[in-house]
């Protein structure tokens, strides 16, 4: 179980202090498929990075399976079963896709077949990619799918994906949706997916709507999804004004 209690993150900039997360509390039960959504700049990525340990919160606590991980280094959290797929993954000169999958799976002798399976699940033709370097020769969408494959290879208790759909073409996205559906059906991990994609939101058990650093809504998909859809148009003043004109 993931328990986030009163989490806050405050930054200082030229305008003074800004609260990115404001006493945010959220509990996610084991093996749930939870989609986090909400407007840009609302604090979703900061929350995900705080859970992984990449961003240090200025207040509050994070418990994973009862262990307080709030101030634990990234490496230790990773070893406790927390995974995070970057929204913008880094590139590495000289490191091959196979190397990343081996590191991710924790198996230095990862078989060719197993490595290829992870790539196939993100819609990449495995033989074309397994020995390629994770460098600037890959497009943004290819890099993103390799990033997702590394999270699949980790098979950890908590998998966080940060906008997995970003930069991915429609055809590959269909394959990715299938993969997420299978993860949802298998129920072996808790999935926390930051997404704005209807087809991913549709797979969710629960939806968390984060806005302005707090949880605006949290509940079963069937209850929250219609509210979000209704809000998308009428909640925006600018668009309402546009309608009048």
């Amino acid at each position, binding site marked *: 179980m993931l328990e986030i209690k009163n989490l806050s993150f405050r930054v200082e900039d030229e305008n003074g202090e800004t609260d990115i997360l404001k006493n945010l509390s959220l509990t996610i039960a084991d093996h749930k498929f939870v989609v986090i959504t909400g407007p840009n700049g609302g604090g979703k990525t900061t929350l995900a990075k705080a859970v992984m340990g990449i961003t240090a919160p200025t207040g509050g606590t994070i418990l994973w399976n009862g262990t307080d991980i709030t101030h634990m280094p990234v*490496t230790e959290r990773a070893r406790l079963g927390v995974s*995070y797929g*970057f929204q913008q993954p880094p590139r590495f000169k*000289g490191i091959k896709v196979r190397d990343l999958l081996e590191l991710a799976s924790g198996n230095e002798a990862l078989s060719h077949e197993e490595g290829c399976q992870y790539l196939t699940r993100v819609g990449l033709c495995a033989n074309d990619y397994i020995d390629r370097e994770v460098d600037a020769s890959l497009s943004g969408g290819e890099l993103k799918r390799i990033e997702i494959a*590394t999270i699949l290879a980790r098979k950890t208790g908590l998998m966080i994906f940060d906008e997995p759909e970003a930069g991915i073409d429609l055809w590959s996205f269909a394959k990715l949706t299938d993969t997420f559906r299978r993860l949802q059906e298998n129920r072996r991990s808790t999935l926390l997916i930051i997404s704005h994609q209807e087809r991913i939101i549709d797979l969710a058990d629960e939806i968390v709507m984060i806005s302005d650093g707090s949880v605006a809504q949290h509940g079963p998909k069937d209850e929250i999804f219609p509210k979000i859809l209704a809000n998308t148009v009428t909640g925006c003043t600018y668009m309402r004004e546009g309608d009048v004109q």
Partner: protein
Amino acid sequence: MSESRNMVDSELLFQIANMKETPKGAYNIRKNSQLDGRQSSRNIEISTKTDRSGIDIRIKPGTKGESVHIPVIITESGVEELVYNDFFVGEGADVDIIAGCGIHNDGHQRSQHDGVHTFYVGKNAKVRYSEKHYGEGEGTGERIMNPQTIVYLEEGASIQMDTTQIRGVDSTARYTKVQAGKNADVVITEKLLTHGEQFAESKMEILLNGEGSKAQIVSRSVAQDQSKQVFYPQVEGNAACFGHVQCDAILMGRAKITAIPAISANDMDAQLIHEAAIGRIAGDQIIKLMTLGLTEEEAEEKILNGFLQ
């Protein structure tokens, strides 16, 4: 192998030439400025120079799939040598040449190997040349290597040079000069890691003289601690040719790196490109590997190993 070889020698030979046993085919092993083992083959003849220190390696035209190992090891402190090795590669040959120098210095005097390798690569011949430099030992004596590689490529000839210096060499000044004829092809991959107070300089002059000649130069280096590196890769296009120079360097600690790539075109149809980048390891690379369960140190090592692979 010769009776005089011990554990230190074997380790050095393994490090520089991946040799665990006597290599197949032609070889020449030099130890502490003395000949320590030699074998010629039917197509590759190795002979001692009569006018100065060094050897001649003559590869018959059409020789295919053979290799020559010519490692040099220095295990005594205070050995300083200058050696000339000339390679005559016959027309249409296709061979692997494995060179390398290992210095084990436990003493207080400097050990230095300066090697001048000259390649005369005949028409349509192909050479793959690998050279590893490695130093070890507990002594305060410096380990110095100054290699010079001069290559003449005839029409349609090619050379692929992989040079590596990973740790242990206190000071190095490399000089590489290639003259490429019509449709000749040169690929150079240089890898370098310096640490402590080490200094490394690499100067290259690639002259693309023949129509259709090509050069691809890739330099990857890592400078750690207080070490210093300087690169001067130069490509000159004197005909319709293609040249690409790429210098990539990672800076760590308080190290310093200078890269001065130069391209000169003396022909309307010369196409030359250079790229140079120096920077520290990106923070998000380290964090990404930490999210896969590596410690910060393990992540750094993985990134460097990949970069220099």
